[in-house]
C-alpha cells in the first residue's frame, strides 16, 4: 500500500522542473501550493476579500441613492476625481454598479464558491488523494488571482473602470467614445475576464475529471453526497458555457480595437459623428453573452444548493429527503439552463415566437426548483434540528431561494416581463434568488467546513449574530425593491431626483441604504470570527458535526494525500442519519453494512443480491433468537 502514498509525490512531480518538492518551502506550501486543500483556502480568502470590496462598492452607490443631493466630503477624500465635491460622479456610479456585479457574480460566487468548495470537498468526499492535475489546479488559482488584480486595477486608470453594466452590451461597451468607462477600463475588464474564464475552465476540467476518474472503492455515482453532484454538474455547466463567452468577448475585442462590425451597425455618436460600422448585430452579442450568462446563474446557485442540502441533512440528523429526486432535479436544471437564455432578451425586439418558446422553457425550470424546495422542507420535517451557524445559513438560503424564486415566475413570463424588465423588480429578484441565497450557501459552507480547512472551530454565537443581522438585513434591503420595480423604477439610475414620480421612493431608498449598511457592518462579525478562529479558535475534533461523509474520516491535520495509508472504502450512501436500530444517530459512509446488521434495511441491498441473501439469513436468525427469548 505504500505505493499509494508514494505516488502522490509522483503526481506533484509530474509537471517537471520543480526540483525542490520534497521539502516544502514557504513558497511551495503557501504560495504555489499544489495541494487542493491549500488551493481551496487560497480561493476562499481571495473570494472573501473580493466580496468585502464589492460590498463596500455597493454601500458607496447605496449612499448615493439614499442621499442624491448630499455631499460627503469623505467620499472626495477617498475617491478623488470620481467624487468631485463629495458627490459621486454619474459615470463612476455606473462603474460601481458594474464592478460590484462583476465581482460578485464571477469572482465571489463563481470562483469564491465553486473554487473553494469544489477544491476542498471533491477529493475529500469522493476519496481521492488530490485533483486529477494538481498543477493545473494551482494555475487555476493564480489565473484567478491575476484576474482579480487586473479587475481591481481598473480603478486606477484615468477614466475609471468599465461601466456598461456587468452584461457589457455593445455598442456601449464597444465604443470608447460612448462613455468614459468604455475606454481603458473596459479593456482591463475584458483582459481580466479572459483570464478568469481560463481559470474557471481549468478548475472545472479538473473537477469533472476527478469526480469521474478518482473516486475511491465503493463510491459509485449514487453514493456521492449531493455536494459532489452539485459541484460536478456546476463544472459541466462551466465547461459548456464559458467558451461561448470567450467567443463573444473575442469578437467584442475585435470590434473595439480592429474596426470590425460584428456587433456594430449604423451608429452616429454625439449627434453628428457618423461611425464607419455597418451590418453588425448588437443582439448577436446578447445571444452569446446570455448563452453563458444564464447557465452562469446556475453555476452560482447549484453549489449553494449542494452545500445547503448536505448541511441541512447533517444538522437535521435526518437523511436528505428524496436523494434521487434531488439529483435528478439538479440534472434537470443543468440541462434546461441551456435553453432558457432568451428570457433575458424578451424586450430586445427578438422574434416574438422565439420569445414564447423561451418563456415555456423558462417556466419549466421552475419545476425542478420547486421539487428541491419541497424536499428541503421535508428534510426538516420531524428532524432533530441542531442550530449550528452553518445550519442557520443553509435555512436562510432556502428562505431566500423561495422568496426570490417565486418572483422568477413573473419575470420568466414574457408578458409580465414587458413591464418589469430592467426595473428594481429584477434587482430584487436576482439579489434574493442568486445573490443572497448563493452567498448564504457559501457562508453555510464556510461555517460547516471551517474545522476541515483550519482544524479549528468558529465561534457559534458570533455566527448566530452574524446570521440574524445579515438575514434580516437582506430581506429589509431587497423586499421593498420589488415594489419600486412595480412602480416602474428602472435599475442603474444614478438618482431618482429627476423624475417627480420617483421622488416618493427616496424615503424607501434611505431605509434600504441603512439596512444595507447594517448588514454590511454585521459582516465584520464574520470577518473577526473567521480570522480569530484561524489562529485562536477552539481545536476541532475529527468529526465535530457527527457527519457521514468521507472528509470527516481524514485526520484533522492536513497531510499530503489526505489519508495516511489506504483510502477508506465506501459502503453506503452518505445520508444514514437516525437510522432505526443503529446505536448512534449517524453511520459514516465507510462503515460496512456487515457491522450494522441491526439497522440494515432490505432497501440497502438493492444492487447486491448476495448481501440481500446474507441479510435475509441474519434477519431470520434474529427472529428465531427472539422467539427463543
Amino acid at each position, binding site marked *: 500500500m505504500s505505493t499509494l502514498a508514494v505516488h502522490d509525490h509522483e503526481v506533484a512531480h509530474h509537471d517537471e522542473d520543480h526540483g525542490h518538492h520534497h521539502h516544502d518551502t514557504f513558497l511551495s506550501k503557501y504560495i504555489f501550493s499544489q495541494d487542493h486543500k491549500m488551493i481551496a483556502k487560497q480561493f476562499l480568502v481571495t473570494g472573501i476579500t473580493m466580496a468585502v470590496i464589492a460590498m463596500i462598492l455597493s454601500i458607496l452607490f447605496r449612499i448615493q441613492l439614499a442621499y442624491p443631493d448630499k455631499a460627503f466630503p469623505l467620499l472626495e477624500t477617498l475617491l478623488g476625481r470620481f467624487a468631485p465635491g463629495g458627490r459621486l460622479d*454619474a459615470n463612476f456610479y455606473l462603474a460601481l454598479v458594474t464592478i460590484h456585479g462583476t465581482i460578485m457574480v464571477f469572482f465571489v460566487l463563481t470562483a469564491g464558491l465553486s473554487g473553494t468548495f469544489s477544491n476542498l470537498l471533491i477529493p475529500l468526499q469522493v476519496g481521492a488523494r488530490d485533483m486529477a492535475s494538481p498543477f493545473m489546479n494551482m494555475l487555476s488559482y493564480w489565473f484567478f488571482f491575476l484576474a482579480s488584480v487586473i479587475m481591481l486595477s481598473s480603478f486606477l486608470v484615468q477614466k475609471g473602470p468599465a461601466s456598461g453594466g456587468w452584461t457589457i452590451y455593445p455598442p456601449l461597451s464597444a465604443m470608447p467614445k460612448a462613455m468614459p468607462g468604455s475606454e481603458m477600463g473596459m479593456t482591463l475588464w475584458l483582459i481580466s475576464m479572459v483570464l478568469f474564464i481560463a481559470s474557471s475552465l481549468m478548475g472545472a476540467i479538473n473537477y469533472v475529471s476527478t469526480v469521474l476518474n478518482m473516486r475511491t472503492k465503493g463510491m459509485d455515482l449514487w453514493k456521492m453526497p449531493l455536494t459532489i453532484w452539485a459541484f460536478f454538474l456546476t463544472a459541466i455547466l462551466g465547461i459548456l458555457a464559458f467558451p461561448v463567452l470567450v467567443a463573444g468577448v473575442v469578437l467584442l475585442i475585435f470590434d473595439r480595437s480592429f474596426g470590425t462590425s460584428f456587433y456594430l451597425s449604423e451608429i452616429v455618436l454625439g449627434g*453628428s459623428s457618423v461611425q464607419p460600422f455597418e451590418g453588425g448585430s448588437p443582439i448577436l452579442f446578447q445571444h452569446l453573452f446570455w448563452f453563458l450568462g444564464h447557465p452562469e446563474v446556475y453555476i452560482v446557485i447549484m453549489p449553494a444548493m449542494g452545500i445547503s442540502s448536505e448541511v441541512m441533512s447533517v444538522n437535521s440528523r435526518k437523511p436528505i429527503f428524496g436523494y434521487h429526486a434531488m439529483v435528478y432535479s439538479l440534472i434537470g436544471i443543468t440541462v434546461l439552463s441551456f435553453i432558457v437564455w432568451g428570457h433575458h432578451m424578451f424586450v430586445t425586439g427578438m422574434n*416574438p415566437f422565439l420569445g414564447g418558446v423561451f418563456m415555456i422553457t423558462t417556466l419549466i425550470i421552475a419545476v425542478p426548483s420547486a421539487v428541491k424546495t419541497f424536499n428541503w422542507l421535508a428534510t426538516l420535517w420531524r428532524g432533530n434540528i441542531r442550530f449550528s451557524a452553518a445550519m442557520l445559513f443553509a435555512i436562510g438560503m432556502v428562505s431566500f431561494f423561495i422568496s426570490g424564486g417565486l418572483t422568477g415566475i*413573473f419575470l420568466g413570463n414574457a408578458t409580465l416581463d414587458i413591464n418589469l424588465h430592467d426595473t428594481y423588480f429584477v434587482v430584487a429578484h436576482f439579489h434574493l434568488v442568486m445573490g443572497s441565497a448563493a452567498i448564504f450557501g457559501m457562508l453555510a459552507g464556510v461555517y460547516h467546513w471551517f474545522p476541515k480547512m483550519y482544524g479549528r472551530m468558529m465561534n457559534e454565537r458570533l455566527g448566530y449574530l452574524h446570521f440574524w443581522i445579515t438575514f434580516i438585513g437582506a430581506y429589509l434591503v431587497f423586499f421593498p425593491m420589488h415594489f419600486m420595480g412595480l412602480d416602474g423604477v428602472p435599475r442603474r439610475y*444614478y438618482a431618482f431626483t429627476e423624475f417627480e414620480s420617483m421622488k416618493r421612493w427616496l424615503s424607501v431608498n434611505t431605509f434600504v441604504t441603512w439596512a444595507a449598511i447594517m448588514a454590511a457592518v454585521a459582516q465584520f462579525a464574520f470577518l473577526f470570527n473567521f480570522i480569530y478562529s484561524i489562529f485562536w479558535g477552539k481545536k476541532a475534533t475529527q468529526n465535530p458535526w457527527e457527519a457521514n461523509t468521507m472528509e470527516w474520516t481524514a485526520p484533522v491535520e492536513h497531510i499530503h494525500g489526505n489519508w495516511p495509508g489506504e483510502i477508506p472504502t465506501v459502503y453506503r450512501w452518505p445520508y444514514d442519519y437516525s437510522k432505526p436500530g443503529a446505536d448512534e444517530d449517524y453511520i459514516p459512509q465507510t462503515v460496512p453494512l456487515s457491522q450494522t446488521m441491526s439497522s440494515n434495511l432490505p432497501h440497502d441491498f438493492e444492487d447486491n443480491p448476495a448481501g440481500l441473501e446474507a441479510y435475509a439469513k441474519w434477519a431470520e436468525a434474529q427472529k428465531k433468537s427472539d422467539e427463543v427469548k
Partner: protein
Amino acid sequence: MGFKSLISSKKMLSLVAAFLLLGTNLLMAQEAPAAAAATGDAATPSVWLGPAYYILLFAVVCFAIGIVGKILRVYDLSQQIQGKKPINWHNVMGVLCLIFLVAGMYGAYWSFTVHGSMILPGAASVHGKKIDQMFWTTTVLTMIVFVITQILLFTFLFRYRYNAKRRAHFLPHDNTIEKVWTIAPAIVLTILVIFGFFTWQQITNTVDAKGETASIDVDITGHQFAWELRYPGTDGKLGKTNYKLVTGTNKLGLDFAVDKNTYDDLQADTMVLPVNKSIRLNIHAQDVIHSVYMPHFRVQLNAVPGLPTYFKFTPTVTTAEMRRQEGDPTFEYLVYCNKICGGAHYNMKKVVRIVSEAEYQAWLATQKPYMTDQVKKDLKFAETKPAAKENRLALNN
C-alpha cells in the same frame, strides 16, 4: 459566584445602555446642525458627517457585543458550576425562528399595504389590462406558495428543534408525495405558461387586421441622452431616414433628397397621442442601445442601433382622466430610457400626453416640420451646385 457575575453583568449592561444612550443622544443632537450643514455650507461638515463619529460608534458596538458575549459565557460557566443547564441555544434559535416568522409576515404585510399602494396605477392601454390580469393571477398564486412555504420552513425549525432525548424520523424518500409535488407545480406552471403564451402572442401580433383603420405611425429615436420624436405630416407617412445624413441640423438623418414623404414630417417635444387610437411606435437608436419604457401603458422595447423595432398599443386613459383618478393635478405620463446607455442615462425622458382626437389634431397642426429653412437652404445648395458646374463646363466649351 453566580450572584457576583449577575451583579457584574448588570453593571455591564447598564454600562452598555449608557453608551447606547449617549450614542443616540449624540446622533439626535447632531442631526439638526447636520441638516443645516447639508442645506447650507457643505464644505464645513458637522461632526456626524465625519468618519470619526462612525468609527467611534462602530467601536462602541463591537465593545458592547464583546461584553455581551463575555457575560453569556460567564453565565454559562456559572450555571455549569452550579450544576444547572447552560443556555439551550437550540431553544433560543427555535424561538427566534418563530419570532422572525411572525415579525417577517407582519413586515411583508406592512410592505404590501404601504409600499404596495405606491405602485403603478392600473394599465392605461388595451393590452396593458391583460398584462395586469396576468400579473394579479400570478401574484395571488405565488403569494399563497410564499406564505405556506415560509410558514412551514420556520415552524418546522421551531417544532423540531434539537432535543437530546428525541431521535429524528428516518424518512429517506416517499415516491407518492414526491410525485405529487412534482406534478402540482407543473400543472400550475402549465396554466400560467398557456395564458402567458397567448397573451404574449396577442401583444406581439402586430399586423393590422383587415378593415381596421391603420395605426398612427410615430417615430421615437434614442440617442445619448434624449429621445427625438417624429410624426407623419398630412400624408400620414413617415419618410425614409439614413444614418449617414445625420448632422446638427438634420438630427434624424431624414433623406430629403430621396423620399418626398419626409417633407412634411413633424418634430415634437412632447409625445401627444389621441386616446383609443392604435399607435404604432417605431423605435430607433442612433448610438447605443436604449429602451423605450412607458410603464403606465405597459410598453417596453429596446431601441437597438441598426435594428428598428416597433410596438403597437392603444392608450385608453387620457392624461386629464388620470390626473383626476390619481388626485394629482401635475401628473404626466412619461417615456424614459430603461437600458443603461451612459452617464446621463438616469435623465432621459419625454412627457407623453394622451388627449382627445380633436385636441390631438389641433396640437399636430402647431408642430414644426423637420424641413426647416436651414435644411431647405442646405438642400438648395446641394441641388444648385452641380448645375453651376454644368454652367462652367458649358462656358468652357
